């Protein structure tokens, strides 16, 4: 880049920060419309039951009740989420405690609440299963006729393999293995899911808290039988999603009621509904085995995992990423991945930040350390020895790895964390004093960006006064993409950010986008933005060439003006009306279905230093260092926020977060913030975020997505640090004091 960057790379405040700090930002639950009804959900009291009959007649008689919707009203109305099984708007067979049985819409919330109690439901209880390993057995109670294994081929596990794993293990010098367990982690965004849906007799406006507004539009069209052109899904402000808020039943319920009653309908989840009816991360049991040679070469992996994907989940919320994204981290010559995505009578799982990798790396990175320990190798050395590098052909289909400066990443992490000063070697804690043991440990992985790159578009419009408008369907899910995409557009146009208007967050006004997930937004939508600006520039140059009768080659557009042979000509002299350009990313070259020919993702290293109290079992994170190659930090403050947030959610996952259910009833025990503890100001560990910029050649200004992967290595890093401290490995997260004491044999 010869020109000095003016907007990209600057830590400018979020463009919508003013609205967020002065209270004027309107989230979905803040929308108020005249005549708006309030809707409430009746949830199933049973984990598995069939509705034999449902009688709403008494509830309907309550003054102020306007409509009640049950499965009887929605027979045959299904929607096909990208990320879980096809679901009915209501199901007659209820598969978890809390699953919607009916929705009441009334003049007030209180009346709706009262009416819920007057609905009479006759249930036929069915046997339930809550454990994925149990659920995968043929003898388990079946949630679906095809059985509980929700792989791409129903009933079958998802298998990926290459090479000769048996031979690799036979010929191995070192074999390590472990059974690793991870908990259900609900998403817990501060904003509970909410929607306001308004059918005005002609068109439907739907304010929905979703990362996938375009997909929600498709669901609404299908269920309501409306053409796409009559539906606008609007998400101006969005209170956190982390993968959890995508396509769901509640906007469909509210929309049906709005069309039946010709009134706007608001449906807002309570905190408990957010945790239970909303989506969450699977729990898993992973059996991982690695084979290695004496020199530290890891030759093979044998990986078998059971993902509990809950009532309506499928492999997308469990194993999918393992098999499409290729980020196996290390160059396994031989491998078998066998994953059972198992439906259970628990809330529905779908991809949540990092999807399967936080669990995978919790096991994998502990086993890599075990090999290193057995061979007396340095933990950095073994990772460097086995990692992929720039330009490598990756298993299994030979995708080429793009820019991947792993040495630099590891060196930066080691230096910033003070690892060499702290690390005393295998079997030696950093410090042992009275009942306190200090330890340090690391975990390493690769990022991934560019999922569904071809489903990203942008339109740019330049006005005669050299101001511009960017129109994008990419949804800002609280990550700041409205700001970073604007920075990219302003930079490419060469105009000040203040002169760029952003139109987004309304499917009725914007161009198409797949949805915000998987660290794809900045990379995919960013590329589309650059493409759209370039198209617009071409159109401006064409216009100037015609208008001024000069050769196109003699015209350039920069800094918001046209230059003919170096002489500046104001835009207003050339165009009298706006000129626009639209762009859709091309479909990338593939090596196999879903596998791009070029793998784009940078290295990440996390290093944790912890103190374990061997009397109480308490783990304190003393110091946490995260290094991530982001290609180019379009806005460093935004990147830091993502890296910190990801690490903090990962630390919660490692040490304290676990959604629990009563053993036989399947009732959630801790669905609110009193009992489900996320970190707060006082106990949140400090995280040192080190941004690395390798300039990804395919990225917009060299950038890659950031937010997805920064959670992935955390549990592995913390577990390795705990092992270094106490000399005992933990195979289950969260690593609660109780589990630590058990591992130490003290209870």
């Amino acid at each position, binding site marked *: 880049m010869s020109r000095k960057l003016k907007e990209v790379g600057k830590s400018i405040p979020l463009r919508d920060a003013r609205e967020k700090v002065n209270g004027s930002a309107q989230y979905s639950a803040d929308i108020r419309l005249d005549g708006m009804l309030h809707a409430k959900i009746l949830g199933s009291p049973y984990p598995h039951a069939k509705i034999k009959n449902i009688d709403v007649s008494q509830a309907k008689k309550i003054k102020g009740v306007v409509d009640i919707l049950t499965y009887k009203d929605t027979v045959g109305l299904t929607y096909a989420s990208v990320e879980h099984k096809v679901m009915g708007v209501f199901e007659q067979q209820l598969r978890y405690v809390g699953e919607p049985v009916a929705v009441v819409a009334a003049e007030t919330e209180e009346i709706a609440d009262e009416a819920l109690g007057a609905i009479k439901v006759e249930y036929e209880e069915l046997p339930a299963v809550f454990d994925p390993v149990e659920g995968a057995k043929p003898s388990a109670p079946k949630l679906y006729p095809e059985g509980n294994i929700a792989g791409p081929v129903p009933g079958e596990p998802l298998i990926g393999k290459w090479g000769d794993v048996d031979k690799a293990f036979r010929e191995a010098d070192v074999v390590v293995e472990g059974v690793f367990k991870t908990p259900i982690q609900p998403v817990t965004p501060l904003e509970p899911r909410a929607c306001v849906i308004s059918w005005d007799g002609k068109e439907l406006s739907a304010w929905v808290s979703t990362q996938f507004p375009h997909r929600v539009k498709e669901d609404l069209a299908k269920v309501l039988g409306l053409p796409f052109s009559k539906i606008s899904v609007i998400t101006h402000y969005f209170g956190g999603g982390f993968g959890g808020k995508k396509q769901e039943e509640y906007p469909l319920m509210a929309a049906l009621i709005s069309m039946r009653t010709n009134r706007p309908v608001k449906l807002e989840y309570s905190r408990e509904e957010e945790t239970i009816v909303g989506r969450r991360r699977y729990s898993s049991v992973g059996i991982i085995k690695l084979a290695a040679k004496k020199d530290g070469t890891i030759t093979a992996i044998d990986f078998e995992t059971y993902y509990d994907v809950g009532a309506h989940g499928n492999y997308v919320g469990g194993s999918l990423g393992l098999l499409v994204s290729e980020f196996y981290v290390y160059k396994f010559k031989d491998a078998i991945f066998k994953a059972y995505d198992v439906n259970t009578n628990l809330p529905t799982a779908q991809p949540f930040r990092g999807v399967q990798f936080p669990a995978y790396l919790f096991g994998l990175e502990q086993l890599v350390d075990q090999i290193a320990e057995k061979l007396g190798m340095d933990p950095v050395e073994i990772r460097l020895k086995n990692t992929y590098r720039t330009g490598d052909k990756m298993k299994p289909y030979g995708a080429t790895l793009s820019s991947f400066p792993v040495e630099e990443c590891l060196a930066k992490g080691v230096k910033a964390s003070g690892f060499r000063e702290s690390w005393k070697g295998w079997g030696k804690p950093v410090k042992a004093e009275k009942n306190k043991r200090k330890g340090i440990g690391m975990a390493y992985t690769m990022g991934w960006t560019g999922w569904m790159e071809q489903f990203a578009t942008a339109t740019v419009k330049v006005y005669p006064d050299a101001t511009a408008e960017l129109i994008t369907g990419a949804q800002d899910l609280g990550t700041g993409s409205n700001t970073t995409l604007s920075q990219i557009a302003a930079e490419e146009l060469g105009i000040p950010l203040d002169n760029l208007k952003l139109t987004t967050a309304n499917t009725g006004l914007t161009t198409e986008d797949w949805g915000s997930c998987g660290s794809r937004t900045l990379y995919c939508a960013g590329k589309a933005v650059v493409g759209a600006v370039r198209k617009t520039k071409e159109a401006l140059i064409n216009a100037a060439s015609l208008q001024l009768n000069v050769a196109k080659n003699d015209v350039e557009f920069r800094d918001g003006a046209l230059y003919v042979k170096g002489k500046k000509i104001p835009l207003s002299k050339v165009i009298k009306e706006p000129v626009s350009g639209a762009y859709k990313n091309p479909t990338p070259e593939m090596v196999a279905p879903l596998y791009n020919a070029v793998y784009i993702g940078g290295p990440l290293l996390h290093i944790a230093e912890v103190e374990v109290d061997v009397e109480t079992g308490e783990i304190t994170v003393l110091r946490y260092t995260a290094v991530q190659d982001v290609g180019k930090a379009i806005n460093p403050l935004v990147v830091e926020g993502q890296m910190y*947030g990801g690490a903090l959610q990962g630390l919660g996952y490692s040490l304290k977060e676990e959604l629990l259910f009563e053993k036989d009833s399947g009732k959630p025990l801790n669905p609110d913030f009193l009992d489900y503890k996320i970190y707060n100001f006082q106990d949140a560990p400090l995280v040192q975020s080190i941004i690395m910029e390798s300039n990804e050649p395919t990225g917009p200004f060299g950038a890659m997505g950031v937010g997805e992967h920064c959670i992935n290595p955390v549990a592995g890093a913390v577990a390795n640090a705990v092992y270094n401290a106490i000399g005992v490995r933990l195979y289950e997260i969260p690593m609660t004091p109780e589990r630590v004491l058990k591992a130490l044999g003290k209870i």
Partner: protein
Amino acid sequence: MDNNKSIISIVVNGVMHTIDVKNNWTLLKVLRDQLGLTGTKCGCDKGHCGACTVLLNGKPILSCLTLAVAAHEQEITTIEGLAVGGNLHPLQEAFIEHHALQCGFCTSGMIMSAKALLDENPKPSEKEITYSLRGNLCRCGSYPKVVKAIQATAKKPEAGKQ
């Protein structure tokens, strides 16, 4: 008059409102649904998350755990009341400048808690800040930058005087 209802007078952001409320309505509900002040957020409705924090006579309270009738003849400040004539409060400015927010849903409550803290203790230590804001949860990961924003505000000479 219905036994379940009361007429209350509350001063919200300097404006007196006399309104009919049910006795069991929370202040949060009244602020959002009756007065349309939706800047105050409902994250849990149980007093666990802090998103609904407002000031009652200058003290921070959880409006989801406070009955509206308990606010009768009291002064309430919400996030909408901090800016004066379009000029943001120094805390609001600092939150913007220091990127002390991501999705922004917890932000109103954070700023109100911070305002109460600085009004009482204009030069808080980092410990005092994290202690005072421990009831304001954030899932995106804004905590360290919120602390910075509050510290930066406290350093300004006019802090605490608004």
